[in-house]
């Protein structure tokens, strides 16, 4: 990278359903808190990049009334319409280009405004899949889960164990939405069926959430904080549309991870990365993600969870914060993962802190069946 860039501050809202406050209020509070966490004033920010979706927010140009709340008044600003990791990537590009030094990145979705699964139906091919009307995002993911489980003989229990692990981790994180410390595999497998084999506890609850972070170039980061979290690598990739895809593997994530590993100089992610924060929008996806990230061989993601390697005290903890299964504010999910990863490096994760984290990976996804994936590698001062 042309410059070193660090995360110097962040903030999240409490992820809940139907928070009785306006969008503007919540965004304002979180951005203000992020600036306070970094210890800077709005005036020191050069640029603002946000992530939100017109249809999830229910207005065209979803960011248009938020320029005041995010502190973009007379600032160089822009919006990406995808996961918050996309906004982070754009903010990173702005700093790397040498035109900006301090960037606020904000992402939000108040999913209680409208059922987000209803919107995702309209992301399908309008000329065929939408006309046929058989698919939606959950059904497509159920197909993916079934194909994956059949091909690699993954038992339902392994998938359920992901929910058990993440929802128990979530109980340690005060910000999450769905907390279930004493959940058992049987309870997951007995929860309501949405689309076989996907059950209620394998899908995230519908959540409102806002998060923001402050990025700074090396010179500025040193001025602002003595605990910067450096961005060491980034990779992003989009897959084929549903029809053309190999659904049993996340090829785009493999490519994104390869880019990020190369940039960060990582050869063996299993040993070199201490903690993983991934956006598993469905429980089976965590297994697929761990394979795509190179933590297990193809189809063997189940071994990681069965042996407890990905638990809080495992060798490669995945989602100590509870992951997307515990709270999924669509556009903010990926950015939340980045913040949680940064927290681990700064040792600010409190109850779900993993000891001795120097390098962390954060992953964000967007689209049906994780069509688009972004990976960030973060590292502390060593």
């Amino acid at each position, binding site marked *: 990278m042309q410059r070193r860039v660090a995360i110097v501050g962040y903030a999240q809202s409490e992820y809940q359903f139907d928070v009785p406050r306006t969008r503007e209020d919540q965004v304002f509070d979180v951005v203000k808190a992020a600036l306070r966490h970094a210890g800077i004033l709005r005036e020191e920010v050069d640029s603002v990049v946000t992530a939100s979706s017109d249809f999830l927010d229910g207005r*065209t140009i979803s960011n248009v009334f938020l320029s005041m709340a995010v502190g973009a008044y007379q600032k160089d600003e822009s919006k*990406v319409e*995808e996961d918050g990791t996309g906004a982070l990537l754009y903010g990173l590009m702005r700093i790397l280009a040498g035109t900006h030094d301090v960037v606020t990145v904000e992402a939000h979705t108040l999913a209680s405004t409208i059922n987000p699964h209803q919107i995702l139906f309209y992301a399908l091919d309008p000329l065929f899949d939408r006309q046929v009307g058989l698919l939606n995002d959950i059904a497509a993911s159920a197909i993916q889960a079934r194909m994956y489980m059949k091909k690699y003989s993954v038992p339902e229990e392994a998938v359920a164990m992901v929910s058990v692990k993440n929802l128990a981790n979530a109980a340690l994180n005060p910000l999450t939405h769905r907390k279930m410390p004493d959940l058992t595999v049987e309870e997951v497998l007995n929860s309501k069926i949405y689309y076989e084999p996907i059950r209620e506890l394998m899908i995230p609850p519908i959540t409102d959430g806002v998060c923001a972070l402050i990025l700074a170039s090396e010179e500025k980061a040193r001025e602002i904080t003595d605990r910067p979290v450096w961005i060491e690598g980034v990779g992003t990739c*989009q897959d084929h549309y549903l029809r053309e895809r190999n659904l049993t593997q996340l090829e785009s994530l493999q490519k994104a991870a390869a880019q990020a590993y190369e940039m960060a100089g990582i050869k063996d992610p299993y040993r070199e990365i201490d903690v993983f924060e991934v956006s598993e929008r469905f429980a089976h996806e965590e297994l697929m993600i761990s394979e795509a990230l190179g933590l297990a061989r193809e189809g063997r993601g189940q071994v990681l969870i069965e042996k407890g390697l990905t638990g809080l005290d495992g060798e490669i903890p995945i989602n100590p914060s509870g992951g997307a299964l515990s709270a999924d504010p669509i556009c903010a999910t990926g950015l939340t993962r980045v913040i949680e990863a940064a927290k681990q490096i700064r040792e600010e994760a409190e109850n779900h802190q993993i000891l001795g984290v120097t390098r962390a990976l954060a992953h964000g996804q967007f689209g049906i069946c994780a069509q688009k994936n972004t990976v960030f590698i973060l590292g502390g001062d060593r």
Partner: protein
Amino acid sequence: MLRNAAIIGCGQTKHSGRRRDVSQAELVSEAVHNALEDAQVSMKEVNALVVGNMQGFGGVAQPELWIGDWIGAPGKPVLRIATGGTTGGSVGQGGFYAVMSGLYDIVVATAWEKHSDSKEAGATTGLLHVALANFFHAFGYGLSMKNLLATSAVGAAAGVAAYQARFYMHRSGCRSEHFDMVAAKCRRNAARNKYAHLQWPNCTPEDIHKTDVIVHPFRMGHVCPASDGASAIVIACEDIALKKCQRPAWVKGLASYSDEENQMQSESGGGVGVLDPSEQMGCRLSAMKAYAQAGIKDPQQEIDVAEIYQPVPSQELFFSEKLGLFDEGKAWIALEKGETEINGRMPCDPSGGVNATNAIGSSALQRILEAGLQVMGKAEDHQVPKKVRNAVAHGWGGVTNYVTVTVLGETPAPRR
């Protein structure tokens, strides 16, 4: 800027009111294909794509997920940027930043809109949706029917622009007749641009003046159409640009400052502190920053051609002032002297501009593209008959508060 970037290829589709021969995806691929052909680059060499449209008009949520397969996106980074009217400008700038950041070497930026995909008039319904939540909110507090009628009678889309025009007329002394002149100029220029929508060779201000008044001071002939179309540019880093292109259009400066808040209302129905929506502080700040990056001290002398986002003619006048191309309140005098014609001193919108072709998501990218064509000398019939050292491309949108300003030139920006 730590790394230089340049446009090495431009592609756009034929624009018209109803492109019924193609689907949305095919429309985008047409533009991307043309851009790649122009740049002599294959999709394999492209490292990343930046895309965007206003998804409400096309009726597909997250369209890049579906359209990606038509433009060779699978296996590549795709970033979708959407900022309303400035979507295209933001997409173009996103592409520039992607290359300037050093992460990617060749990037395709593409933006599109297919208005005819929606049954109702896309432009108006879309813009009404901007305030939909606030509208419902206000409705809960007993909004008066007469007020509602006033809004729909002056038109949601033309409404803000009409106020802006009135402010500008009051400040500068220009009259409705000058808007006729701008509109006629745009129709004439469009006739020389084979991709443009509203083409009218030899159109005169009198022709425009004969059309009906829709809301004073605007006539039917002043207003932009709703077009189907897409545009794409290929952006490359310095080494590749010099190798692949004889005369690339270098990016010298870029900025997208938001103005103070919004004209019509703020979130939850509060009032707005901007007293004059034609003031456009965002445009002035953006221009200041972009010129500073480009090392331009006197835009009146150093800019040779401008592509301004002007859905209605008044906007060409006051935005050209805010971009520093004319003294404050003097643009209409320059117009009277013919300085903004293709062969004038400061040609504005030689392509016909948004006033002649408005595929909303794509419009602001088209401004960058057309400015690029002028710098590269590839604008064919609407090429300005003088040496183009610097060209400025402008985008405008949101609820009057978003602006993108991009300066392109024949040489890279001076190193700082």
